[in-house]
């Protein structure tokens, strides 16, 4: 075991998390179901005027994605914390930030990717023009990993708390706002037909920035939560 390289540790951990998620398929569907349900509530709440629905469509999809990500965050470290796996991570010879990155990636593939696949369907239901759907997909593929990355810091800080749920949303939602603003702005701009490279670049920058910084902060937070 001592000869296990960092890359194989990373892939093993990723595989393990994916297999564990696949074994609990009912839980796997929950965030997606939540995403669709929240989105479907909005037209019922604001009325069926197609123009109005189109105007709020991108925002609704993104807010629903935000809430779905928030809802699923707690599962990222919960079971590993309860059964002591996290403490074994701390003892491992590999940098914790890399191991954490594997868990974040697994979490995104379990919760973020399904949203990305379901989004075009929901966009159709909310009258988002077909021309704007590629932009929506692009914002989702750049933005939802940022949600998982930033969220991992919040989860790592609250994983040891008995009632961490409400605090987690208080910690994480304000940090999600820049993603929300730029992503919905990109979709709205593309509906009007103006190029969106500026917003997309900023989203990509946020992804790169959080990819570098968030695992470090998460690793440090986990160490504090386990002390």
């Amino acid at each position, binding site marked *: 075991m001592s000869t296990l390289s960092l890359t194989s540790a990373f892939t093993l951990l990723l595989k393990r998390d994916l297999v564990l998620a696949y074994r609990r398929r009912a839980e796997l569907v929950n965030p997606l179901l939540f995403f669709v349900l929240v989105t479907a509530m909005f037209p019922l709440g604001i009325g069926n005027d197609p123009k109005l629905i189109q105007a709020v469509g991108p925002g609704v999809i993104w807010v629903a994605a935000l809430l779905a990500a928030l809802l699923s965050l707690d599962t990222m470290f919960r079971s590993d914390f309860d059964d002591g796996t996290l403490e074994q991570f701390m003892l491992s010879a590999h940098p914790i930030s890399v191991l954490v990155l594997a868990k974040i990636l697994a979490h995104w593939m379990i919760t973020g990717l399904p949203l990305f696949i379901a989004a075009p369907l929901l966009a159709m239901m909310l009258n988002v023009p077909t021309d704007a759907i590629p932009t929506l997909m692009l914002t989702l593929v750049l933005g939802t990993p940022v949600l998982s990355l930033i969220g991992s810091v919040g989860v790592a*800080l609250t994983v040891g708390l008995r009632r961490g749920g409400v605090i987690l949303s208080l910690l994480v939602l304000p*940090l999600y*706002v820049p993603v929300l603003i730029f992503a919905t702005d990109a979709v709205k701009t593309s509906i009007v037909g103006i190029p969106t490279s500026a917003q997309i670049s900023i989203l990509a920058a946020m992804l790169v920035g959080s990819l570098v910084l968030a695992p470090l902060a998460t690793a440090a937070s986990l160490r504090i939560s386990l002390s």
Partner: protein
Amino acid sequence: MGSPRYFYNVAGKMIPWFAISFLLTLIAGIYYGLFVAPPDYQQGESYRIMYIHVPAAWMSMFIYMVMAAAGLISLVWRIKITEITIISSASVGASFTFLALVTGSLWGKPMWGTWWVWDARLTSELLLLFLYLGIIALYSAIEDKRVAARAISILALVGVVNIPIIHYSVEWWNTLHQTSSVTMTGKQAMSTSMLIPLLLMGISFKLYYGAVVLMRARAEVLERDRNTRWVRELVEGEMK
């Protein structure tokens, strides 16, 4: 300097100086702001709320930066006093942020005709309030206060990403809110007679923060060290 006992004594000596200079600058600032400064040619008398609103908004960002810096220091060097500074600053910062929001809303009604607009700056200030509340909530949720202090250090550092967004949001989105009128360099957009009371109030608010944060930190030091000898001696000395 790191020793809690030394800090307790030095802070106790510093508080009166902060408090007195706060009161002097406050009186001077309010007098100049309300009676000496001329009314604005567009906004009339109602602009004078600026003398509370702008310094409060400055403080809301300044205190967060202090907390982030203290967070970095306590994570790297594990200094007790900086850990205490973070949580002692948090509620003061939250109050200033709330004050900036309330006065902004009161100012917005006569100027824009509405209490609240979803302008970038107001929204960011609201988010800053949430960041402060998150720090306070996380600190109170963790039982072991040394662990809690390290947790909020990280949170303050993560949240500091939000500060530049607040600051540059004016340039990025620039909607209803007027752009910043005070700049370090270049031509001032404000007349000197209006600027002097604003700066006086800015200094006054900072001194207030200095006095309050030292008082809170002293109380926190006493609570954390309640089982040590020097605190017992101190309390017994008071009892006599």
